[in-house]
């Protein structure tokens, strides 16, 4: 009886922990070949340069995604972009990792708008609402790609590495 009550109490606490704090506790880390490693929260995202893009998700429908350009985050961390993206820095790459361990790679050059002309977004909202649980708080959105396999949900970390 007491055991059952305790279990109920425990699960109640867990539910509220997950429900209330789950999303807010999440951070996006930026590490590796950086001047300043970052650990960004949802509120940090509000103080960075924000943009909005329209792109087609897996459902085939257009959605409005808002958030911070990936390059703005990389620049804040002191990653070699723009004029510094030359010579050996062109052998740098990014490993973006999701909460479930899924990993995808970008060359540093392909994500730099000055270099490739493309904009990659770290989104925190879709169609005016925060990203739902299981998708957010952060998701990569790459508008010009035909398959959204690199649109990582629950983006947890961005690591910049040198190809060795």
């Amino acid at each position, binding site marked *: 009886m007491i055991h059952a009550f305790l*279990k109920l109490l*425990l*699960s109640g606490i*867990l*539910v509220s*922990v*997950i*429900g209330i*704090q*789950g999303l807010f*506790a*999440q951070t996006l880390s930026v590490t590796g070949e950086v001047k300043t490693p970052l650990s960004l929260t949802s509120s940090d995202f509000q103080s960075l340069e924000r943009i909005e893009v329209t792109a087609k998700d897996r459902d085939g429908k257009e959605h409005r995604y808002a958030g911070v350009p990936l390059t703005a985050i990389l620049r804040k961390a002191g990653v070699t972009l723009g004029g510094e993206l030359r010579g050996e820095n062109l052998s740098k790459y990014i490993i973006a990792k999701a*909460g*479930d*361990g*899924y990993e995808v790679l970008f060359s540093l050059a392909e994500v730099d708008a000055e270099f490739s002309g493309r904009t990659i977004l770290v989104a925190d909202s879709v169609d005016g609402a925060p990203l739902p*649980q*299981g*998708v957010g708080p952060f998701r990569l959105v790459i508008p010009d790609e035909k398959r959204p396999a690199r649109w990582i*949900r*629950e983006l947890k970390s961005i690591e910049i590495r040198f190809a060795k």
Partner: protein
Amino acid sequence: MRNIPLLVALAVFLSSFWVETKEKKAELHPYKLEYPSSFGSRFVIPADNPTTEEGVALGRMLFYEPLLSSTNTVSCASCHEQTKAFSDGRPLSIGVSGKPTRRNSMSLANLLWVKNLFWDGRVSGLENQAIFPMTHPDEMGQSLEVSAKELAKTTRYPSLFRQVFGTSSITGEQITKALAQFERTLISADSPYDRSLKGNYTLTASERRGMELFMRGAAPERGVRGGNCAHCHGGAKLMQEVFHNNGLDSIAVADRGKQEISGDELDNGRFRVATLRNIALTAPYMHDGRFNTLEQVLDHYNEHFHFSPNLSHELRTSHNEPTKQRLGLTSSEKKDIIAFLHTLTDSIFITNPAFSNPFETKK
């Protein structure tokens, strides 16, 4: 001058040591890991533990060695039987204490490509992994130091360790290194499914339908039906190193899975997405062995899973029927998927003499 023959004899005697040492070094032969090119080489073998024929042979002996347990009755193979694709057929395992372990014994296949081991991915690298079962009080229950001493007392092991590691005494680290070398060789890539990819086996109609359902995601708007299994269990190796909450419980309380390691609420009830290779041999299923049959597993994914707050996105969003919240496959579709899963049974892997108990073959 009378001493010349003696000196010559001494020189010959001493040079024999020199030759012997040189030969010892040369005796280590690199082990050639063979696997389909589609599996790729996304793995790292530690520089201080290269895989050698001799190291693998020693690791195989240690894998079957009960002296590594406190009761001298339990070896790695007790819970990882080759005939069951190196699982043990129990919901939870029984080690030296007789008390069930916390989680289901995992099949050991294609670990070469796994970075973070265990159901919750808590340990990086096979060398580090081996420490846990050997020292856990409910598994083998013996410190590595004691195990090293036990092995040193035998007639068999000291020379083998000397040959592989070049040192006069046996250490716990060497035990884990040799075990890791052996485990890297446990490659399963010769199932009927693998042979069908090479054109050496023709899938039956049911197996083929099952494979298509397995590989494809549902898209009812385009009239496409699918189980979407491959989203998490796909790829050439039918294994991806990801950790998901598959809705076994509404909230995982008794065993919180990856959350217990990361402290992150979003990891509640997240466990390794297990390899499906040899899955027909590795019942019961899930981290707690709660499902006895593949039919029960399919029913779970199709009809029963809980909508836990951090349920895998793919499970939440895969529907074949607009009216069904879950997968909504028919019973004959489920049967086809199970028929396909049976084609992943690699009978060469489970009978390969190179992986079997070396002490039994010597009898």
